[in-house]
């Protein structure tokens, strides 16, 4: 399952960066495309804005076929406070831009990508393609929530991957 989660993150990061290279975040002094996986970062009370935060929620495994099929749900949260020069009056437009970027990245064909084994990236090696692919559904956008000037939305995507032999 971990390989599928890593592959989905890398796919989304690549597609979002291609759509809008200006959407970046600075995390621990490193400039990165504006997408992160919450469970892979340091726990903090600070909520980064103007970026996409991935959280993996539900998991189910169908073992009726020879190769088990894992279905995982990914919550993608994103928020904006608007920009200072515009006195936060552009926050609706900025959130709409994020809605469009996410929808376009996930709807772009193909809605699948070869699963990658990222376990060797720790030693500097590139992720290696595996035998099967991951594929995902269209995102479902939840109603917008407003807290003060902050506008936030959560989109959920169902992601599917076959469990290959010997895979964790």
């Amino acid at each position, binding site marked *: 399952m971990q390989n599928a989660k890593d592959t989905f993150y*890398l796919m989304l990061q690549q597609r979002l960066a291609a759509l809008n290279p200006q959407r970046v975040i600075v995390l621990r002094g490193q400039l990165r495309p504006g997408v992160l996986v919450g469970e892979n970062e340091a726990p903090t*009370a600070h909520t980064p804005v103007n970026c996409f935060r991935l959280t993996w929620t539900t998991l189910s495994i169908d073992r009726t076929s020879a190769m088990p099929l894992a279905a995982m749900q990914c919550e993608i949260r994103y928020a904006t406070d608007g920009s200072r020069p515009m006195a936060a009056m552009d926050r609706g437009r900025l959130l709409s831009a994020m809605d469009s970027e996410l929808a376009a990245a996930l709807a772009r064909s193909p809605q699948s990508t070869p699963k990658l084994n*990222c376990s060797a*990236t720790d030693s500097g090696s590139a992720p290696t393609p595996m035998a099967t692919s991951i594929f995902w559904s269209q995102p479902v956008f939840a109603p917008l929530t407003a807290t003060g000037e902050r506008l936030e939305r959560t989109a959920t995507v169902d992601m599917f991957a076959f469990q290959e032999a010997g895979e964790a």
Partner: protein
Amino acid sequence: MIVAPTSSAARTADTLLRNTGGRTVMLRMPSPAASLVSEQLGLATPYFHDVPLAPVIFRKARTQTVSGKPVPTELLVSSTIVELTVGSLAYDSPAVLFADALGIVIDGDLFAIETAAPEQAFGKAYLYRLILRAPLAQAV
């Protein structure tokens, strides 16, 4: 290094902190990340470094406890050391410094920073009030 002159309110706060049990705690800061995919995937262990903060006062933020939740604690930090740390680590402001920090290490335990707010006199901070959350393992 050029250090801005300390205001009289900050000097008074420093004296009060020192004389009411002022102690040293460590601010745990992340070291710059490596540009590796493995760090973004949670595979590589990031590095951290501890910066001493003194004088500070560490106390319970409230006396009543809520079952299953850690008691919030409060840390009063001298603005002098905060401004010095912001300058030496080249951060934009104390708010960015505390937002980037992993937490505060007190007697070997890592406390998460929930909020950090300055107390001001004549528009200048003389003290920083941090609300900390104890490690979940300590919740009773």
